[in-house]
């Protein structure tokens, strides 16, 4: 139980700092908590808007792969 609590706490901490979260083999219960945390992390206003540099970078990548 303690391990699960700590793993999810670390995962949440990463989300709240907008970092790539820690990876781990999740039990079904942890997976449910991971999904819920990810959804809640997206509710802060504006959190889910992409930045312009990212949009332009992907567009450039696509131009290299489309026929």
């Amino acid at each position, binding site marked *: 139980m303690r391990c699960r609590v700590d793993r999810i706490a670390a995962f949440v901490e*990463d989300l709240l700092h907008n*970092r790539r979260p820690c990876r781990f083999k999740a039990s079904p219960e942890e997976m449910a*908590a991971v*999904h*819920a945390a*990810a*959804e809640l992390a*997206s509710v802060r206003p504006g959190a889910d*808007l992409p930045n312009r540099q990212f949009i332009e970078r992907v567009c450039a990548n*696509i131009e290299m792969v489309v026929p």
Partner: protein
Amino acid sequence: MVQGALYTDWETVYEDNVVRVYRLMFSRVGNRPDAEDLTSEVFVKSLPNLSLPSPVAQVNGYINVAIRSVLADHWRRHYGAPLADVEVENIGRALDLRPATEGTGRAGRILAVLPDRSRAILELRFLRGCSIKEAAREMGVSPGNAKILQYRALRLAAEVGERMLS
């Protein structure tokens, strides 16, 4: 350009879809680095296999298939989630996401029906951005107990979310 219901160039396909794909990915993974990687993967994997001109509905359907596949692969690779545990059947719901506004939308409804202490710990952490120590102090518990409360609250939130979908 979109002429009638046809896409005729890649730029328009991308411009019409990139924000919604990114926001959907963000709502599923909750962080910018993963959301960016997964969004990029969706377009780089799906667009080269499409031929234009193509109907808008067909292109959107193709992108949705790529979203499901990329997300399922993400959860399987990084968290060992078996395919059955990966929520990929409700992509259509998430595509209707409106701009995130605090306390509204699906996440807001989930929080609203949680027991008081579960709602409180999640609001302190996710809406007010409190550290675990700050949240613990607000709730009058130790940081260790705040982590336990947070874990249990997230599992409860997941159950509530599942019931909302069913």
